[in-house]
């Protein structure tokens, strides 16, 4: 999208993101790079200069070709540039899980939670009575005090 990165850099970044959050092919959950999280990063670094520097540092230290961006290569980057890696990791998680489609794939509603919310059934009186019966049967479990005696 942005002209922030060359095609080669973008391919490297996508490969790196795919290593950070890989796909689950069985459940058709995409990896972070394939999902386009780099576009989210591009938006963020317009106002977060340090993030841009961190990504540049990581790309400069990365293998020359996207094909070589393996988990081992990413581990090497993490070890060599821990602060920059941590910055990228956090924003990658934000970009990935801010997607409603991804939320739905991990079992959470894709909708904004207001006004719809979630339907959660209230426990019936009988169920509450039954569950709390053993607690009530054991009796008081606090120490009482009398009121203060005024001198």
């Amino acid at each position, binding site marked *: 999208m942005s002209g922030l990165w060359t095609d080669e850099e973008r391919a490297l970044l996508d490969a790196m993101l795919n*290593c*950070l*959050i*890989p*796909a*689950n092919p069985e*459940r058709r*959950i995409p990896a972070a790079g394939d999902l386009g999280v780099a576009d989210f990063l591009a938006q963020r670094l317009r106002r977060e200069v340090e993030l841009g520097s961190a990504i540049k540092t990581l790309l400069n230290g990365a293998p020359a070709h996207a094909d070589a961006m393996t*988990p081992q290569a*990413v581990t090497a980057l993490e070890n060599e540039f821990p602060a920059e890696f*941590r910055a990228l*990791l*956090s924003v990658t*998680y*934000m970009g*990935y*899980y*801010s*997607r*409603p489609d*991804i*939320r739905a794939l*991990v*079992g*959470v*509603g894709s909708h*904004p*939670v*207001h*006004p*719809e*919310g*979630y*339907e*959660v*059934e*209230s*426990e019936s009186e009988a*169920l*509450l009575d039954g*569950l*709390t019966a*053993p*607690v*009530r049967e*054991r*009796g*008081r*479990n*606090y*120490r*009482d*005090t*009398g*009121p*203060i005696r005024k001198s």
Partner: protein
Amino acid sequence: MASDPVDVLIIGAGASGAAFAWSLLETRMRILCLEQGSHLHDSDFPSRNQDYELSRYGAFSCDPNVRRLQQDYPINSEESCITPVNWNGVGGSTINFLGHWPRMKPSDFRTRSMDGVGDDWPVDYHTLAPFYEMNDRNTGVSGLAGNPGYPDYAPPLPSIPMGRLGRKLARGFNELGWHWWPSDAAILSQPFDGRQKCVNAGTCDLGCAAGAKGGTNFTYWPILERAGVELRTECRVREILIDESTGLASGVLYFDPDGELREQRAHLLAVACNGVGTPRLLLNSVSEQFPDGLANRSGMVGRNLMFHPLTGVSGVFDEPMRGHEGPMACSILSQEFYESDPARGFLRGYGLHAGRSTTPMTFALGGFGIDDPIPWGAEHRRIMDSVYPYLAGLTVVTEDLPEPHNRVTLDPKLTDSDGIPAPKITYSLSGNTRRMLRHGAERATEVLLAAGANKILKGDCEKVWWRAGWHQMGTCRMGSDPANSVVDAWGRSHDVKNLFIVDGSIFVTSGAVNPTSTIQALALYIGDCIKSNIENLFD
């Protein structure tokens, strides 16, 4: 430029300031509240947006050092293992609190005489009980009557759903024969007083767009403003002024929304800025009579800072727990280990809170209050697909005993955007607290296993949650002796007869429960004391 004096000037429009103002409504005094933040409007609530979780890491972070909004002041927490979190605006931290609403217990007010630690309060549970009840009605509290953990009382609304997660854990507690009870919550289980019931969005920390959570922006303030209480927003108080001839507080200097410094005079002042903001304001209010800060002849302003140190343990179950559905913090609460038992190796106790699990982004970034992201790579995929949906957790919430070296002071360099010195926190955990956290983590593990967890996820319980500083207490403690306390049993300064403090800073001990219910009960009680003694209030 000075303005006409008001009868009552309240500084801070949060939990305590609002309740205190409500208590004084019937006096028909002219009441003014100065609030450094502003109102939230309907469109401001992030939970109406698709990417609502992102706001937790920006403008709706609970941490003012992350938010950095105009109304926020920075806090230097470099010498603390816990950083204070808050919200500055109409409603204060009831905007982003989680609405968990347990009361303190009778023994919490008598820790010195019953357990030989902390100090006794100059008020007791039974004195406050009517004010708890009054506040529960005003707030709209949901819960189940008959909890054997307390003297008898009945919340006005039925309890909110425990959910699958709560029911599962309740059976675990029953299996072990331990106390638990559905949590009291300042969250509506039914429509109440023109407000809609909770929609189980699970984003209580992002403000409640439904108005179901009992933030004072939805409870007290609409009533107060309709009744004529003047609320001036975006007004930050720099200092409280003293009349050197009478020794009474005469008013305040504050920055108005345009950044102009103004004077507001008042006959009675109430400070309601929380356990960090209140000592900060008093320490910034220096005069010839009070060279070490206003109302600080005891030297206790800022000392005895208490939080509630937390640690968490989670279990992985065989079925999805749907923990993202429902109010975040309030499913069930066990107080099996709340009262002292010296055989456990520590004094006082803790609660085991079954909150719900967080949403995916928050979980991936390390959870609520924590900053350690989960692993990346194949392990990330496995955790999110095979662990996250199946989680239920317990939070160990410990009582923090007062220690004078845990304190709020003024940072020599750091200031807010108006140039007012910022607070600095110096705080460390006691050995008693560390033993409690270890004990709690072990008991939480037992419960989760008894409830059927097939795996336990436990962090290092020596490392408490960094953003656990929701509950800020003790820094202007109540007491009968002016030598070692800041305010008396009415919340009135020992040193300045028309200055009251009505927030959590006046707590003598912390209990091991969320404090807002007690903060507001105390504010109502102090208002009642003022009304009962209005004829000779400043004698």
